[in-house]
């Protein structure tokens, strides 16, 4: 199996995440797009680990992917709490409405 297939798929998923972050206005959908980008990075890490450096005794690539999954789960929890707080205070989850700190 050539590493180029998974790498291109990861690049595509990352680009889709970038599109979602820029184009979407709903804060929850922006969070979903960020998760998409994190998953693309995970595919990259696993590809490099299993196809290019399969003999690494510390299994670095897969370990990084596991840690990213853990950190992403924590990020979703805090992010959704912030979105709920914003919804309670402003009755909207539109990221364009969250301009209180705009200079």
């Amino acid at each position, binding site marked *: 199996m050539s590493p180029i297939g998974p790498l291109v*798929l990861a690049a595509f998923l990352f*680009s889709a995440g970038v599109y979602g972050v*820029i184009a979407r206005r709903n804060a929850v959908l922006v969070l979903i797009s960020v*998760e998409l980008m994190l998953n693309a990075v995970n595919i990259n890490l696993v590809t490099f680990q299993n196809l290019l450096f399969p003999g690494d005794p510390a299994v670095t690539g897969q370990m990084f992917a596991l840690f990213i999954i853990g950190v992403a789960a924590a990020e979703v929890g805090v992010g*959704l709490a912030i979105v709920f707080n914003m919804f309670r205070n402003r009755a909207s989850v539109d990221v364009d409405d969250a301009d209180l700190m705009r200079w």
Partner: protein
Amino acid sequence: MTGHDVVFVVVGLLTAGAAVLTVTSKNLMHAALFFAVTLGGIAGVFLTLAADFLALVQIVVYVGAVAVLFMFGLMLTRAPIGREALDGKNRGLAMVVAGGLFVVLTTLLIGAFGDLPTVEVTGPRIDDLGIAIFADWVLPFEVLSMLLLAALIGAIVLARRESGESGEELTVTRIQMAEDRDPDALEGEQAALTGGSGGTGDAEEEHA
């Protein structure tokens, strides 16, 4: 092209299509469901890359927990549905940026890794993973556990209502038993009821 590659191409196309639908869907709940499909597809990609444990973690953590959390988030925040309501005015800019990024990344990747020989996919065994976690990665592992605890407390503190603010007070209608009352008053009320001007009408309005 081996059967392995064919499986990867099928799973990869499914994943990519679901990802596109995730970021372009007009319906919030459909977007969340397509996101769950994307995560499942990524678990399939992990399986074809011989990362079995990671595929299972992906299904348990992402499909099982994160996707459901996102659905809760979408249901608890009422938001308008429709393309104009969901996408901002910079959809064209987003298309240009994402497309340009994809072209640049793909060119770079093919230039850097396009001539690598195809190799047999081999993943570490699951006991190697366990030994690696608790030998080489034990400090990051413990730090991650503290991070999860901090995120848990932070999420509760952020999402909780302030103390003293306990929402709207509900009007409680007290249930009155007939035998608790004075028989004369009861008779008078019955007369008022049959008379047309309902004595209980006020209570019903209050309840509504």
